[in-house]
């Protein structure tokens, strides 16, 4: 019963947030005007607010899913999409385009930054998968990801140091992330990644629960350790990579979302947790986007400032709570 109530509340919240997002903004409109614009395919709604709201909902769900699966994979409550170095891969490639004037030809040229970010994140993901297929210890993969992140960060700082003022501004603004820069096909690709993530969870099912018991127990319960690891890494990488490509390196949402859900819904079984996580991720994404746009004013806040304001307290809460309840990290 409780589970059903939570689902209904979250769905209502999602609808309310979606409506608020598309109804209010810097261009003020009356109620009648709003419905007219909605019916008449008005670009303010259909080219800006609706795609931004959908992007926020999908990206929130994707990041939540990626963070949650990574926390399961590494059995570490502080794992998140940024730890694998995937975000750094995107950042470096975007830095190459924006700061060093690197450009793509052929089919990639029209996609510009998105193509750069995708190539960067999938390049790092391929490396991570290669390492994962060769080492036994999962911790090694984690450390490898972190080191790749530092290494790519070093290249990036060299580019930043040598860059001009205006290029630097556009790179910093990409790094602050946004759900508002809509590109053709973006929603389908985000949706496709989310579906891939959901199908993976459904396919793995209770194996995700077994995994939390430790590799030895998981194996003895029928989990093929190698393919399980590869599948989760690949899916988490795709989810984080695609979101970073379209929205920039969104901070905290992936890391904090599973914990935010556990504040009101304690469910150890992955399959039962999934839908609540996705709905909460979508709501959180839309809430952040709404705060970012501050519909009551004409200015816009950086997305990462908002996600960190909302996400950091969740992680602090987690740490304080873990001290009380003897949970070890």
């Amino acid at each position, binding site marked *: 019963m409780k589970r059903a109530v939570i689902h209904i509340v979250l769905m209502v919240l999602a609808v309310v947030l979606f409506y608020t997002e598309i109804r209010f903004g810097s261009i003020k409109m009356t109620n009648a005007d709003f419905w007219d614009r909605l019916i008449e395919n008005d670009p303010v709604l259909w080219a800006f607010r609706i795609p931004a709201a959908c992007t926020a909902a999908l990206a929130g769900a994707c990041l939540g899913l990626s963070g949650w699966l990574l926390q399961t994979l590494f059995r570490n409550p502080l794992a998140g999409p940024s730890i694998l170095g995937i975000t750094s891969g995107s950042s470096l490639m975007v830095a190459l385009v924006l700061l060093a004037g690197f450009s793509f030809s052929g089919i990639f040229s029209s996609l510009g930054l998105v193509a750069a970010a995708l190539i960067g994140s999938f390049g790092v993901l391929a490396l991570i998968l290669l390492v994962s297929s060769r080492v036994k210890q999962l911790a090694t993969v984690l450390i490898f990801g972190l080191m790749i992140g530092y290494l790519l960060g070093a290249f990036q700082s060299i580019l930043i140091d040598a860059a001009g003022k205006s290029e630097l501004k556009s790179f910093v603004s990409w790094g602050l992330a946004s759900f508002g820069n809509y590109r053709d096909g973006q929603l389908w690709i985000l949706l496709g990644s989310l579906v891939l993530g959901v199908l993976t969870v459904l396919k793995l099912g209770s194996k995700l629960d077994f995994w939390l018991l430790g590799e030895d127990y998981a*194996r003895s319960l029928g989990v093929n350790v190698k393919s399980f690891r590869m599948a989760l890494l690949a899916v988490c990488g795709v989810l984080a990579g695609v979101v970073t490509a379209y929205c920039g390196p969104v901070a905290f949402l992936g890391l904090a979302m599973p914990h935010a859900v556990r504040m009101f819904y304690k469910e150890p079984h992955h399959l039962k947790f999934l839908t609540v996580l996705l709905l909460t991720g979508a709501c959180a994404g839309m809430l952040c986007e709404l705060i970012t746009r501050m519909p009551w004013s004409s200015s816009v806040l950086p997305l990462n400032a908002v996600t960190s304001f909302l996400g950091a307290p969740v992680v602090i809460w987690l740490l304080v709570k873990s001290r009380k309840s003897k949970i070890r990290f």
Partner: protein
Amino acid sequence: MILELKNISVGYNEPLVSLVNAEVLEGELVVLVGKNGVGKSTLLNALKGIQELKSGRASLYGKAIGDYTVGELSRNVAVVNTARPLLNGWTVLNVLESTDKSTGKEKSVITEALALCQIEDLKRKEVDVLSDGEFQKVMIARAICQQTPLMILDEPTSFLDVIYREHVLQIFSELKDTFGTTLVLSSHNFAPLLKIASQVWVISRGKMEVIQSDFDYDGIIKRLK
């Protein structure tokens, strides 16, 4: 015969234990003893199908363990080890249910395992707040829920106090006598286990000796040195 080891060697770069030969019948309890680092866990890992053999053949019901898929092994071998995973928010019942692969009928398995391990009062408790001893019993109950003919336990009595240890011995006795489960376990506190053991495997100086009867504690200690 459930388990047969023919001239097997296990180890990493260099073999730790060589030329191991043993036969285990259904319902037997095997106690594996040896000093730290002699290769007890490595040998158990080979039986679990995690560690590849350096040579020889280890078979379960006549089929080489390496030829089993992970799924097939999960239906035949349950394991208990000393690891203590972080199970944020899981209750004891959640842990047992995680092993419960079917509906209806197997619910009674959970009840039975809880009763056998005398942990009914813990079933709604969060696993992370249990003592190490209580946690160990929960993991034994979990392995029971898996309902496999063979159970491999690495140091299952290591965190237990005297009373708990006595109780775990009763659990092992009942598992082998009533349920016909075969148990292979390693232990440093093996003295009380000798009362219910069917075989003792002693690893020393890279070799393994199988003792089938008349287990003499002092004699085993001498062999270990």
